[in-house]
C-alpha cells in the first residue's frame, strides 16, 4: 500500500495541477458554481490535499475489500456509495472496524464468564439466560 501511495501521489498531483491549469487557461469564462461538497471540504481544511487523499482512499478501499472476498463486480459500486469521510475511515482502519456478527471464541473459561455476565444482565450472548 505504501509503494502504491508513493507511486500514485505524484501522478495525482500532476493530474490535478494540469487539470487546474487547463481550466484557468481556458479561453471561455467558466461560470460553474462551487459545489456544496467542495465548499464543505474547504471549510474543513486543505481542499487539494483532501482531494488527493480521497482518491487514494477509494482505490485502497477497493483493494482491501477485494482482498476480503468481496465480489469484483460489486466492489466499485460499494466504494462509490461511501462518503469521503467514510472512505477515509475504511482505508485507514478497515481491520479495526467492528464488523456486525463476529463470533466468540468457544473457550470454556470464556463461556463461563459470559454465562455469569449474561445472568447479571451485562451481556446478551446466550438466549436461555433471559
Amino acid at each position, binding site marked *: 500500500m505504501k509503494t502504491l501511495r508513493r507511486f500514485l501521489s505524484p501522478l495525482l498531483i500532476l493530474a490535478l495541477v494540469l487539470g487546474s491549469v487547463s481550466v*484557468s487557461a481556458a479561453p471561455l*469564462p467558466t*461560470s*460553474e*458554481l*462551487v*459545489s*456544496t*461538497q467542495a*465548499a*464543505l471540504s*474547504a*471549510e474543513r481544511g486543505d*481542499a487539494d490535499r483532501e482531494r488527493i487523499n480521497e482518491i487514494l482512499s477509494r482505490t485502497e478501499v477497493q483493494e482491501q*475489500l477485494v*482482498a*476480503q*472476498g*468481496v*465480489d469484483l463486480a*460489486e466492489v466499485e*459500486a*460499494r466504494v*462509490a*456509495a*461511501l*462518503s*469521503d*469521510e*467514510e*472512505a477515509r*475511515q*475504511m482505508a485507514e482502519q*478497515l481491520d479495526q*472496524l*467492528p*464488523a*456486525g*456478527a*463476529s*463470533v*466468540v*471464541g468457544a473457550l470454556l473459561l*470464556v463461556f463461563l*464468564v*459470559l454465562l*455469569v*455476565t449474561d445472568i*447479571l*444482565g*451485562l*451481556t*446478551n*450472548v446466550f*438466549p436461555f439466560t*433471559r
Partner: protein
Amino acid sequence: MQDRFKPVCKNARLAGVLLLSLWLLILTGCAATPRLAANTEQTLPREAMIEGVPFHAQREYQCGPASLAMVLNHDGVDVAMERLIPQVFIPGREGSVQPEMLATVRRHGRIPYVLNDSLDALLTEIAAGHPVVVMQNLSLPAWPMWHYAVAIGYDLEASELILHSGEEAERIESFRRFDATWARSERWAFVALSPGELPSGVSEQRALQAISAFEQVHGAGATLPAWEAFTARFSASSMGHFALGNARYATGDAPGAIEAFRTSVAHRDDLGVAWLNLGLVLLAQGETDEARQALGRAAELPGDWQPRAREALERL
C-alpha cells in the same frame, strides 16, 4: 497433608471469589439502568411500537443485511435481503462494517443519519415512527460479538426495548441489558429517512454532512427536498441556504437559487463562497450590476475562493 492444605485452598478460593465479585462489581458499576433526561421523560409517550416493520431472520453472520432490509422495506424500498448481502457483507470479516451500512442505505435512495449517542435520541426516533438500526456488542470487549438489530418499540414503565434481532422478531430487552451491550459500540445508531425527512434530535453539522454525502451519490434533483427540509429546520444555517441555492440552480431554478444565496449571506456576511455563487448566478441571468457587487464582496474575503472571485470580476 490434606489438613495442611485445606486452609490454603480455602483462602485461595476466597480470594478468587472476592476478586471475581470485585471485578463484576466494577462491571456492573458501568451498567446501571440508563436514565432519560427529564425533558424526554416528560414529552415521550409512555410506550410506542412501530407497526409493520417486516422481520428478516438473519442467516449465519448476516445481521447487517437483515437489519438494512427491515428498515429499507419499512420505508418503502423494495429490496430483498439476498440483494443486500453482496452489497454490504464482507466475507473476510464475516460481518458488515458501519461505514458500509450507511453507504448501502444511501445507495437505495434513503439518507442515513447517525443519531447522537443517547437512549433519549433512540426512543425519540421510535416515537416518531422511525425504526432505528443499533449496533451492539452482545459479549464483553475482550471477546466481541458485534451485532446489528432494529429497535422498533419501547415501554417506559417496564423499562424495556423491543427489537427485531437476529433470529427473533419483537425481542424484548430491558433498558439495562440493552444499554450495557449498546454502550460497547459507543451507542451507535442510525435511521434511514427519505430526502425531506429529518430525525428530531440531529445536529446541524451531522445533518449537513449526511445530506451532502447523499447528494454526491444521487445528484441535486433527488436531494433538493432534503435541503428544503434542512433549511426549514436550521433556518439560520448559512451553509444550508448555500447548499439549497446550489441544488435549486442545478435543477434549473435560478431565481430560487438567488434567493437562497441571498439568505445565506444575510446570515453570514463573510461566507465568500456564497457571495461567489450568488455573483455567478446573477451573471448568468444577465444581472451584471448586482453580479459585480456580489463578486466584489467575494473577492474581498480571504480564503479558498478569493482567486476565483477575482478572476470572475476581472472578466466582467
